[in-house]
């Protein structure tokens, strides 16, 4: 009888422990099956995506350069035409490379196409040369307008002198103005022609040196033109003071 009671208690304990284990096991299984397995992209797809990103970035730079040429008020027609032709050609090359990247089947092929994109040197050559051509033409055009301004101021000084004023100070300022205009235009004018023919294949030599020289000359020309304008402004003030004191 005693043995029978022990058997019943043991049976109950076993039944309870087996049931609990089954429930726990079921919960664990559910957890494992719900979590999705993450799939890593294949290395070639990753590289292709990076190549396309690089191409898109270069195309965006070219589009901004095209807009700068189009919106420039002072660039000559000839220079604008040559720059736009070169930029359109580079954009077409990038689109062609983009299609080749899509079709590539090996990592080596994609790497070769990425190297081709870098070889165009959009950032090293095309962008700075386009900006230098625009700046060079703008400096020449503004120098021309300053020349006409100086001419008009000369007429005013002559008139004032004929009317009995002492304009020696005005003539000295006009001389400074004309010298600065001439120097600025002389520095800026040749830059456009010296860089406009450069392309990616010219990097680093001779493009690097020519672009550095162009940048230096354009900055110096900018200072000259500013000083010429300042002298012209002083002449106007001088003439105004003559008129006020008469």
């Amino acid at each position: 009888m005693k043995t029978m009671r022990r058997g019943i208690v043991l049976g109950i304990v076993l039944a309870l422990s087996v049931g609990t284990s089954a429930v726990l096991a079921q919960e664990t299984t559910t957890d494992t099956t719900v979590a999705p397995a993450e799939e890593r992209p294949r290395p070639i797809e990753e590289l292709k995506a990076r190549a396309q990103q690089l191409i898109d970035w270069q195309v965006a730079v070219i589009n901004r350069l095209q807009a700068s040429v189009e919106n420039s008020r002072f660039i000559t027609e000839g220079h604008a035409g040559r720059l736009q032709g070169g930029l359109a050609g580079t954009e077409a090359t990038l689109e062609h490379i983009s299609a080749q990247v899509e079709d590539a089947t090996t990592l080596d092929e994609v790497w070769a196409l990425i190297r081709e994109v870098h070889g165009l040197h959009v950032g090293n050559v095309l962008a700075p040369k386009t900006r230098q051509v625009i700046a060079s033409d703008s400096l020449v055009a503004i120098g021309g307008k300053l020349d006409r301004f100086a001419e008009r101021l000369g007429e005013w000084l002559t008139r004032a002198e004929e009317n009995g004023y002492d304009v020696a100070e005005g003539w000295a300022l006009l001389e400074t103005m004309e010298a600065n205009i001439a120097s600025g235009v002389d520095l800026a004018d040749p830059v456009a022609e010296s860089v406009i023919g450069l392309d990616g294949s010219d990097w680093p030599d001779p493009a690097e040196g020519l672009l550095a020289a162009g940048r230096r000359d354009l900055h110096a020309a900018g200072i000259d033109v500013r000083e010429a304008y300042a002298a012209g402004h002083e002449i106007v003030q001088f003439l105004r003071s003559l008129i006020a004191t008469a």
Partner: protein
Amino acid sequence: MLRGMRRGIQTNLAWIVTVLALLVTGCGNADGRPNADPTSATSPAAVTTATVLPTTLPDQSVVSTTTSTTVTATTTTTSVPIPLPDIDADLDEFDDLESLLDELDDLLADL
């Protein structure tokens, strides 16, 4: 008596001629303009000479009287220059130079 009258007539004639000469010189400026261009150099003196024809009588020798009048034109060489017109209206077309130079600065900053 007659001699005294003649002398009186001659003196009066001389005065009349002098006054006429002065009037003739003055007529040059009758339009109210200033005497001289202020910018021009001093004008030479205007010299008017009037000769009084002799009044002759049959029993007398010819007496001739010449009166000279020198009128110096007053020239004003002024140190005040002629005023100039407004300069700003004539320089309108160059008003945009300042903004053009600002644009240029932006272009040069991007090089």
